[in-house]
């Protein structure tokens, strides 16, 4: 990968992903499952778990990059607006740092709704796994 390389993908938070996340990780906080609870706090619906986005990020790193020999060194993500069930998210990523000395790459990423509303953004550092 080279400095400035850009990538994009579309992800949809489907019922299957939402239900699967709750079943696997048992986070059934009312914000995520109780419509009235969520609405009373100003949200338009039950809020999707923020870490579902990290699942999409994992897919991007593991499956969408040109090099499959890759591990995640670190990542950070900041959330700006809630995502709801069936939201389509536009994921964009850009290589902002290449550290050839240690085979590491830094990628900035952003999740936005089709309307342009920013849901989350962050930075991830990846590298090659050597034996």
């Amino acid at each position, binding site marked *: 990968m080279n400095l400035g390389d850009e990538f994009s993908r579309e992800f949809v938070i489907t019922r299957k992903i939402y239900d699967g996340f709750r079943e696997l990780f048992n986070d059934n906080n009312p914000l995520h499952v109780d419509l009235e609870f969520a609405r009373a706090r100003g949200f338009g619906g039950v809020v999707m778990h923020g870490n579902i986005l990290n699942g999409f990020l994992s897919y991007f790193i593991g499956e969408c990059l040109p090099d499959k020999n890759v591990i995640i060194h670190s990542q950070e993500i900041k959330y700006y607006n809630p995502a709801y069930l069936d939201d389509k998210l536009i994921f964009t990523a850009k290589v902002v740092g290449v550290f050839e*000395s*240690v085979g590491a790459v830094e990628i900035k990423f952003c999740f936005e709704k089709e309307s342009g509303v920013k849901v989350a953004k962050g930075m991830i550092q990846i590298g090659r796994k050597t034996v």
Partner: protein
Amino acid sequence: MTDADVLKQVNEIFIDVLDNESIVLKRETVAKDVEEWDSLTHIQLIVTVEKHFKIKFTAAEILKFRDVGHFCDEIIRKLGAS
């Protein structure tokens, strides 16, 4: 920037990256002297140093570092060349 300045800043980077406030680097310090300094944290240390000092090392240069003193000398050399 003096040798002492660079060593001090590198020490601060080690404390932050390795999350160990007790680290006190000397010129003769090597990886086996610092418990948290392993192959993965080594990558974080190099990346953080490159970003902090706005310099770039090559893979060959990284392999030649003998100790912290040599590492700091190379940082100073890079800063002088930039």
